């Protein structure tokens, strides 16, 4: 009887072990593949919709013109993609959708825009959260970003090119990093920032890796791709 019981317990333990390993494989690889594929499809459909109609203009402008004012982007309902993020440092073909909201479900579909923070290009802080591992891992290489690296946001009508200024590792409760003026809550913003947050260290939720970038230029889609992407 005792032998039979230990036999069953042993088999249950082995089964539990196999299921745990299966969970790890699912979390690390399966979610990565399936979310990555879904995010690529979202980017493809957005790009197709936004570039349909007008042919790309010649890349070289006749004379330097002042940047256009940013078109106001209205925040869509939570979960909806409204922009595409390009980071040449992460690869020439790197492009992920930006969806509204930073809930568990939203972050499976791309990088999430913190609701209540600024929209692309406008004065304030356009703050994004993304997975560093699993679910397409859009911010996998976030710690590779260096000062001056381009972070480009494409919306339906415009391109916004930001340049990395600083990075930091903070506690998960440090919401001041997504304040309108990063790290200075309560201050009135005068510049357009972009902030990226991701978990840190990798595979852990103990801390957050944070990158701040400052708006460099605004460009209408009709004026062609921004130089930061063309060079990549």
């Amino acid at each position: 009887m005792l032998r039979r019981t230990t036999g069953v317990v042993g088999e249950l333990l082995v089964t539990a072990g196999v299921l745990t390993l299966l969970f790890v494989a699912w979390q690390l690889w399966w979610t990565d593949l399936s979310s990555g594929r879904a995010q690529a499809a979202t980017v493809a459909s957005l790009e197709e919709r936004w570039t349909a109609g007008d042919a790309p203009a010649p890349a070289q402008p006749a004379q330097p013109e002042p940047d256009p004012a940013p078109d106001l982007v209205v925040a869509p309902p939570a979960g909806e993609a409204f922009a595409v993020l390009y980071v040449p440092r992460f690869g020439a073909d790197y492009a992920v959708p930006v969806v509204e909201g930073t809930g568990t479900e939203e972050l499976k579909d791309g990088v999430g825009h913190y609701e209540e923070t600024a929209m692309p290009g406008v004065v304030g802080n356009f703050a994004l959260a993304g997975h560093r591992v699993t679910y397409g891992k859009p911010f996998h290489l976030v710690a590779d970003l260096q000062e001056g690296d381009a972070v480009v946001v494409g919306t339906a009508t415009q391109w916004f090119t930001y340049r990395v200024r600083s990075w930091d590792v903070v506690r998960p409760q440090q919401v001041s990093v997504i304040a309108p003026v990063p790290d200075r809550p309560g201050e009135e913003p005068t510049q357009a920032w972009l902030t990226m947050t991701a978990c840190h260290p990798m595979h852990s939720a103990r801390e957050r890796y944070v990158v701040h970038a400052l708006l460099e230029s605004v460009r209408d889609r009709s004026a062609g791709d921004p130089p930061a992407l063309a060079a990549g």
Partner: protein
Amino acid sequence: MYAWWWRLLPGPWWLRALVSLLVAAAVVALCFTVVFPLVADRLAINDGTVDGP
């Protein structure tokens, strides 16, 4: 447990193996589509957002 399962199944050995394989595949599919997503959302080992205390 598995010995009991094997005795429970009817037919020759290859039929038992086939049925076992199909059941195992169904269990894995259920885990991937229902169980694991639920567990992962509760674990949040990869949360990358900042929020209030």
